């Protein structure tokens, strides 16, 4: 992970931007991993790479994954909002 919640830096790195995009692409009610590439405008054939990119977010506790369905945790939501507001 590039940054922990609470850390403050206005200019995000490419990795952080991609993570924020991933988090913001997951709807509040969660979704199947297979839907996630399409929600980001990517090919459905990219399910596996997107799933791989989610793993660090799951490990950080920002995303929960159950039976190949993902949802954003409260901590993840908080970090997302915090970073977006920092950059607003």
């Amino acid at each position, binding site marked *: 992970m590039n940054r922990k919640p609470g850390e403050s830096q206005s200019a995000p790195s490419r990795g952080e931007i991609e993570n924020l995009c991933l988090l913001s692409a997951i709807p509040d009610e969660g979704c199947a991993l297979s839907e996630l590439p399409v929600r980001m405008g990517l090919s459905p*054939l990219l399910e596996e790479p997107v799933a791989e990119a989610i793993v660090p977010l799951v490990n950080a506790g920002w995303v929960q994954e159950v039976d190949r369905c993902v949802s954003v945790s409260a901590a993840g939501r908080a970090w997302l909002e915090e970073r977006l507001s920092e950059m607003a």
Partner: protein
Amino acid sequence: MGTDVPNTSSGINLTPAIRSSLQAKLERLLARPIIAAIPSASSAANGATRFGGPDIFRALQLAAQDSQPSAGRSGQGGPWTENPEDGTCLVRIEIDYDDLWRSREKEILETVKNTVESPVTFLTSEQKTLLERSPREFLELNPRPESAELVAYRLESKGGSERVVELTLAAPPASPAYVRFIAIVPNLVQIERQLDGLQTVEQASDDGPLGPLRALVGLCDVSRLQTLSDAAPPIAPESPATGERLDEFQAECIAKAMSTPHFAVIQGPPGSGKTTVITSVIRRAIARGDRVLVVSPTHVAVDNVVEKLVPKPDDLTEDRLEPHTMPVRYSARKNKLSDRAMEYWVGGKRQLRGATISRRLQQRLTAHVPVAKSLFAREDSNAHGSAALSASIAAVERVICGTPIGVLSYATVRGAAPGAFDLLIVDEVSKMTLPEFLAIAVKAKRWVLVGDPQQLPPYNNSEENGPTLDDVLGAHLELVCSVGAILERTKPYHRRATRLIVVASEPARTVSAIRAHVSAVNLESSPPVATLDEGPMDGIVVCGLDSLDAACEALSPMRNRDRTHAPDQRGSLPLLVERGIRVTRPEYASGTRLVETRYRCQALIFENAFNVYHAQPWSERAGQKLAIVRFRNGLEKYLPSVAAVASVNGHADALLNSDAHRTIRGEIAARYAINTVSVYDWLTGIPAEYFDVSPLLELQRLSHPGLCSAVRAFVGVLKKQYRMHSSLSRIPRELFYYNEALHDGKKDESADCRVALVQVSEGGDAGSETNSQECERICRLLADLNARVPDQEKKPGIMVITPYRDQKALLSDTIDELRDRGQINRLDVDAFTLDSCQGREAEYVLISLVRSKATPFFDMPKRWNVALTRAMLRLFIVGNIDSYLREAVDARRHPRNQPREKGGPARPLMSLLARILEAYDRQIAEYQRSKP
């Protein structure tokens, strides 16, 4: 006899012959490798040379250095200077020009030139010693010594000759400190990889993924292929995907490629949409979950596929980063790739593809994720760390593209198990031989082969291929047949006066074998053949090594004149030495010269059989005799005759001799086919029915009808062309495709004739293969075109094509001058030889003929087909057109040039070029008549 050809129930097992061929090539390459020393940092600095003379202190110093890692490190001031831009590295080298390679600067330069774009091998001191002592043991080293592609070289002039002093390599060695030498051996790695491929096929099981390859080389029953074909689902033409436009032939070929359980073969004439078909197959294969490998012997063809797969820069709105749009374009270095293909370049240590994919992802996220736009606007571009999504998407390598041997250097491919890729697509397969195909084919389990047998065949280097017959002929028989070759190449009225010294291990036996052979093959007016003792000294003298000086003394034309020590002086006495006998320099220096490898029978068998193989089928189908086809008459004179075989065997049993003779001829045919026949022909049928002379006659036995029959359902032809204006496609369609393909797929805007024959009366420049008059005329045409075309962003492409390298160099220089003077600023002009223009197209094509009279080199239909089918809008043929037209008129007018053979129809005997120009001239006249 070295190898026999056991017959399986399916066909001939080709693997022993393939192995022997490759081993023979390797041994030839390693017989005298060029080994360049790398001066250590200190010696490079003070200018000392490694081979600098008998300085004992210097030698001791170097020996001490050899035992420990050199001080220099890559990029740290040592002998290796790395270029951070592209990862290449420069290294200064020292070649032993003073002793081992004395007076052979030209030979070294030629070898180094031929090695560019091929790997060179890094050697430690121990490895170098092993290579010199025992090439065979060197080849068995495991792990193999490191290698890197030779990118360029630098010359320095010394004593009036150019010496290679520096190499540019695609990458430095991993452990430069231990590398002391570089072996410059062209094709070494290629052949090793072909051997690896062969071994993998041999070790595979008949039922496994490589079963079809085993059937192809005759290791298992072809009925397995037929069973697979029968079980395949029925082929239904594919309907076009979104944004795809396919004609009926393209749709059919795609369907065949997608449904084949083993091989699919697609013939794609020029401009027929080969690349469209290939990319459509890739798209469908990826959609069904396949991993695809795409290879072609030429970078241009690989780049064409990559460019068609990736989204256009102005069309990124619908870019969903589909896996097929993110190919890996592997190449040891990126310089030779097109601009767009370069964006997907992956090299040994560096790559550009990851950044390209990251950029595309950014564009997609910006368009689809609401917060992305503002986030990317604030990106800290200096921040380090990985971008997980970009990285994991870039790790999707479902399509890997490269050259067949080059791509095997890519770790993902090199480390892949046999059959790991679902599909291998080979473009320009008609340029690929069987061993070259096997090297990469073992990585896949199904194969789609795209090519055109009417375009350039595999490259035949007769001197390189010749030694593959070593074990078939044996030294003695080869010597006898080479005498036949020398006599055959001498005009009959000069033959009687031929003088030749033959150095043999058993002179008496050789004399009787030569006499028997010469008489058996009807070499009329042959000179007397005798041993030195038999005298009188005239004609062909056969002697042992110990009496060579005496033979030279007796036969030398310089006997009563001043002696010369120039071995290639005109009038010097040719010396033909039995293979295995080493004649050292002083022994042949006195007014004699060694017969070069290219004039010995092995090279000539390959050379002439190759010419006939590619010209005779056209000659038969087009109903026109070609001078080059008459080369087949010579083959019989230097192929082993029954009498020569009997003489070598030493027994008189006619039946046994006849059997041995047949076996040798069959094996020669196998070696010929393995090294020069394309995979396309192996799978669709070798055209053996057109041949009437050995070794081509024996190809019938090798061409397996069961194999062709099993593949037939998956063979398709793209019959429509979309490149050329109809007035440009007409003659190639009639002459080279017999009106069976190259039909116009689109309607022309205008019905004019776009071919122009531009007369330049002056002949070629004396003593060279250039024609400055034609060059000047072409410059005027270019300037004229430049004035006519509007100044636009995309400049029209112009290809200037010529048969000869010298003329190409002259044209390139002149084009550069025009460019510098701003006289062709609206055009994108490049010069090519006939053999280097395949796979390209341009709006305008100008062909410089150079010569006023055709040579055998001109009589190759496949060469001209390629050159004449590059133009999209207009074709100019510049040369002494009138001379060729006169030749055509004479050939049709004079019956003496039209012998009736076997009661068949009369055929004019003219050069191919005369026939081509005659056809264009008629077309132009026809158009002019039809004009209101």
